[in-house]
């Protein structure tokens, strides 16, 4: 281990933590330094083995249920100053007022939720934010797929009659990205297809719609960005726009995107 680059250079290169200049410099260095080239080959072999092994632990369905319930219960006190009910609740003869209050509450909550979910809360020009918000909503619900199936011949026809276009549904199970199902979502002011995949046991949402919906200018090469800790990869192909979102490692999501971009039917 003579080369000083081995300790940090190799790993940073592998982890995609180098900027463009350093990447090019390191690639030049790789050509001249057999030690680093060998170290990189080993680290790549290790990473592939880790990727294949499916080491991520996921909670069992019962555990998930318990944990979600706990979060839901906890959330009730998510505001520090817990409200104290006014005397009206306990006042004798206050029953009718109580009912009136309950009715008002209902109306208030209903209109508030309408306002909350009905109105666009995000700047419409940042589609990435919207896409991440949709991804998060699908996770909040706990069941990201309306049609849960690993078979693309089940998922694809499910969209027929629900959308004005037919989304391409590709099975990538052989490449480590099994299909988990599909869902209708609403983005770019249209109902759109959300395909659910798994990558290293992480949920991936792939949103796809005709590029005309969002006047998209993205190129055919998948480009990555990050929003709120989620990775987003975006590209267009054959008049369709694609957005993949997940919390899986960025290089895995890019690989997923490249596989789709390469195999997208015309």
């Amino acid at each position: 281990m003579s080369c000083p680059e081995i300790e940090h250079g190799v790993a940073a290169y592998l982890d995609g933590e180098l900027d463009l200049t350093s990447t090019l410099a390191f690639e030049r260095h790789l050509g001249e330094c057999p030690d680093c080239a060998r170290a990189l080959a080993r680290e790549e072999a290790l990473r592939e083995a880790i990727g294949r092994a499916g080491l991520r632990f996921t909670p069992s369905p019962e555990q998930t249920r318990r944990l979600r319930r706990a979060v839901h219960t906890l959330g009730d006190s998510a505001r520090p100053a817990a409200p104290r009910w006014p005397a009206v609740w306990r006042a004798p003869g206050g029953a009718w007022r109580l009912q009136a209050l309950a009715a008002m509450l209902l109306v208030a909550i209903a209109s508030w939720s309408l306002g909350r979910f009905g109105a666009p809360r995000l700047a419409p020009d940042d589609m990435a934010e919207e896409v991440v918000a949709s991804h998060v909503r699908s996770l909040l619900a706990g069941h990201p797929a309306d049609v849960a199936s690993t078979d693309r011949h089940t998922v694809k026809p499910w969209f027929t009659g629900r959308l004005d276009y037919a989304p391409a549904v590709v099975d990538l199970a052989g490449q480590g990205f099994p299909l988990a199902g599909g869902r209708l979502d609403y983005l770019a002011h249209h109902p759109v297809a959300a395909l659910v995949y798994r990558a290293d046991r992480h949920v991936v949402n792939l949103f796809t719609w005709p590029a005309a919906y969002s006047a998209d200018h993205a190129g055919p090469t998948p480009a990555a960005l990050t929003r709120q800790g989620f990775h987003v990869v975006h590209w267009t192909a054959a008049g369709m726009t694609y957005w993949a979102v997940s919390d899986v490692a960025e290089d895995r999501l890019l690989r997923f995107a490249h596989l789709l971009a390469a195999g997208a039917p015309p």
Partner: protein
Amino acid sequence: MLSSIRDRLFRQDGRHRFEQAVLPHLDAAYDLARWLTRNDTDAEDVVQTACLRALQFFDGFKGVNARAWLLTIVRNTFYSWLEQKGRGGSGGEIAAPFDEAIHSGEGATTDPEMELLRRADGRLLRQAFEALALPFREVIVLRELEGLSYKEIAAVAGIPVGTVMSRLARARRQLQEFLIAHGVKEGAP
């Protein structure tokens, strides 16, 4: 009366914001807790406690990176849990020795070793991860299984980025050495 309605709405809003921050990252929280505790039940307990703590700290959360925020709390919860669990070997867990003498094998990287790395199966890899001391296990889990960037790992583990890099490098070296050593043993007829 109006104030009670307002309070109720705030409560709803608080719950919504809290769920939105925590629920999408429950799987990541569980994965980290499971690798740290090495046990299903303890992992669930740690995540439950972490959610409670997350609620207590929720006002301080700026809403930028909920995943790194929650994972930080899970990690801290785990270490307090470990401390509470008492002396029962926990000190050894944190400072699990890494025998530099055995593992300092310089150079001598041959193709058969590459082959062993490539062929390593899930069971052996799992053992290799479990054999790592905590400071190395946590960074490699955050990087390889949860896909965090160096900066995010530094924030979660409360260490400088340089330390993240050297711990990752050491973790990977130990994994390779474990796989090669045990791969040879198992591969031998």
